[in-house]
């Protein structure tokens, strides 16, 4: 794997079907944990009106924005259904119970 992996914390600190945020110099990144312990990292800002995606309801590998219910695929960051938009995503992985992000210069 290439890139620089930054340790963000234990997987156990992120609720299943929930998210926690990582604060960076360029805003927050939402780190999601699915019901099946997969992790995904997306910018914590909906392209619609900037809603914090980390506060959305996580279902399957999607999240619904808490402000106006846009739905995003956590894999690609693409808006689903009739809405058009894209949220930047970041590589995330779990190793030894710890979550790592590859957020390059931000880390």
């Amino acid at each position, binding site marked *: 794997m290439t890139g620089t992996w*930054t*340790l*963000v*914390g234990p997987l156990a*600190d*992120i*609720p*299943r*079907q*929930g998210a*926690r*945020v*990582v*604060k*960076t*110099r360029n805003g*927050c990144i939402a*780190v999601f944990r*699915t*019901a*099946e*312990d*997969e992790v995904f990292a997306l910018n914590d800002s909906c392209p619609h*009106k*900037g*809603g*914090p995606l980390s*506060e*959305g*309801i*996580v*279902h*399957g*590998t*999607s999240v*619904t924005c*808490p*402000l106006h*219910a846009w*739905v995003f695929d956590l*894999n*690609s960051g693409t808006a689903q259904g009739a809405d058009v938009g894209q949220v930047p995503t970041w590589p995330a992985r779990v*190793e*030894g119970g710890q*979550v790592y992000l590859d*957020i390059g210069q*931000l*880390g």
Partner: protein
Amino acid sequence: MTKKKLVVIGAGMASGRMLEHLLEGGGPESKNWDVTLFNGEPRGNYNRLMLSPVLSGEKTYEQIVTHDDDWYEAQGIACRFGEQITQIDRERQVVVSKGGETPYDALVIATGSAPFIIPVQGKDLPGVCTYRDLEDTNAMIAASRPGAKAVVIGGGLLGLEAAAGMAARGAEVTVIHLMGHLMERQLDPSAGYLLQKDLERRGIRVHCKGATKAILGKDRVEAVLLDDGTVYDADLVCMAVGIRPEVRLANDAHLEVGRGIVVNDQMQTSDLAIYALGECVEHEKQLFGLVAPLYDQAKILAETLNGNTAAFQPVQTATKLKVTGVDLFSAGDFAEGPGREDIVFRDPGRGVYKRLILEGDRLLGAVMYGDTADGSWFFDLIKQGKDVSDIRDTLIFGPAFAAGGAAANPLAAVAALPPEAEICGCNGVCKGKIIQAVEGGATTLDAVRATTKASSSCGTCTGLVEKVMALTLGDSFTANANPPMCKCTDHTHEDVRRMIKAQGLKSIPAVMQELGWKTVGGCASCRPALNYYLLADWPLEYRDDRQSRFVNERNHANIQKDGTYSVVPRMWGGVTTPAELRAIADAADKYNVPMVKVTGGQRIDLLGVKKEDLPAIWSDFNEAGMVSGHAYAKGLRTVKTCVGEQFCRFGTQDSTGLGIKLEKLLWGSWTPAKVKLGVSGCPRNCAEATCKDVGVVCVDSGYQISVAGAAGMDVKETELLCTVPTEEEALEVIAAFAQLYRENARYLHRIYKWVAKVGLDWCKDQIADRATRKALYDRFMISQSVYQTDPWAELAERPADWAPIKTLTLEAAE
């Protein structure tokens, strides 16, 4: 030629298999080894996997021994059982035990793993065991007298086998599991739900989301205490929460150790003369707990020792639980991930759940419960990485279909049913009878229900009935006008509510399985609704699922457009004190609140609070004697009052006092949508009670209670429910009406919308009937005994949960 000395530490399943490969089938080279086998346990190799049948009484220890004394003798192995190795001297190539020093040319470490002991008070009490070896098994057998109470901590593979074994011997067993569902590493929540149901049917109690706080007892174990205060009596406690590689010897010898002893593809450690295999090793950052890869390692190591080239390649593994009568299978990778898709099949009637995980044209994983006959076929597809695009449409139906069965058209399947096939099990209605009814003029679902009773009880067969109708009516069939709850299901809100009660469904996975949900984990629309229905119908049994709540209820504050929150402390009946106002002012200063505003419901709103400050501000308010105002809740918001007879020259009753009493009665209750009340002291109605969900207007003779007002998107005056002479009756009527709404309305419907559907007259009848009213009131109070708690007090104790998990901005700031 002199033989080379091979020392093996540990007589587990991996080393046993390795010795077989090395000595039996190894060719002439194999005769070059002079083997000494050490084991900490006072016995040789046995099939540890078969301890569960020993525990349950289906097998004896003798039946699971894999290598007996004769075999060791025939192979010329010097056995040193019950003798622990205390040190490896790498320089001199000797191992040290109480019997002295034993030299080696090659050393194999196969120390396996040690059970993980959770560090709680009481963990060393007599009666606490793990589940690893024959001693543990015998301890459990001895303790499993009929009627004895056993607690198993850990609902994974091992824990459940321990639980089932002890239950089979007559013990009363409780399983405590930290996670939300059993075997969460192998199963998804739906399969976990079915498993739990099966175990409960055998009398095993299952407590998920249970964290062990302490093991209680004086001289020996007596009970287990959980974080949530639950206490389970126990004569025996078995800890089966996991294992970790036993690496102490390797550490002391300064071999390279990560989580396990690091080995290369030839099972060689960082010392060229030392090898390792089994549960104690780490290969390419991976640990191994299932037996299949361990046997592969055994083969590779035997080859290596015999001078052949071979390389260990971990393969996919499949899991089965060894509990008689429980059919589950999981294989491959079933985590959700980029580009992955699910195919889900559920048969609620048979308790069958199947889920396949695909990536592109390949099958990645499979989870099956109830019907695992096709498990090995799927496992093969996974291992071979076969292109399944051709058979994808019918893949979930297994090899029979893939071999060229009929197309899996759901209508075709129904069409193929004979007329006497039963469609509705509750009412014994067959397909022919439904066709008859439809041909006789019943062209809507309601009409079919009225004439045949089909799908009118539990409702699970609604989809089937509709398919029969569609087949009979052809193009003129129109599906139920009432739309389904969401895209995850064909059932309406009303049907789901009815079936939750009729079938006694008490968890979200239970609803999704039994009602045939079409998605794996629901969506943002159905999950909050299901969570509400379950907590409203089963207040004592269901546990609120925080992750199925909308942000405001999850964070107990209203999210604002910029991601900050608003905080509203409760002011009972809109009455406050100088001390409370000072506390609010202090908090506004302390947390730099950009706006303080009086709300329409007579409360004070602090707007623009940062998420990470929420626990602290709540804690400050708690200290000043204030609790959450639930301004965010689909629940009781506010009771707005006028000053009433205490000050007002027109007031007829103590409207402020009644408002406070109402708020103290109703606060904390969850409802389908928000609920706002008003109490006016006279018909001048200064509290604007007649556009609330429930409004009380006081008159000389008593209290006029009216309901179903609105002052939002719709504006509507309330309608009179009843007039009562006393305050006590007013309180009982309103609580009973709130419960009627809680039990019957669909999620997100305000009271006025719900009343329009069911009719005010029906509501009046329910409330007018004394017995019904009293029963509603009693059920409301039962729910309040659970839910009338201040969330602020509880959540303020966990401030870390509200902060970012990590802050990476500090360096930049410096």
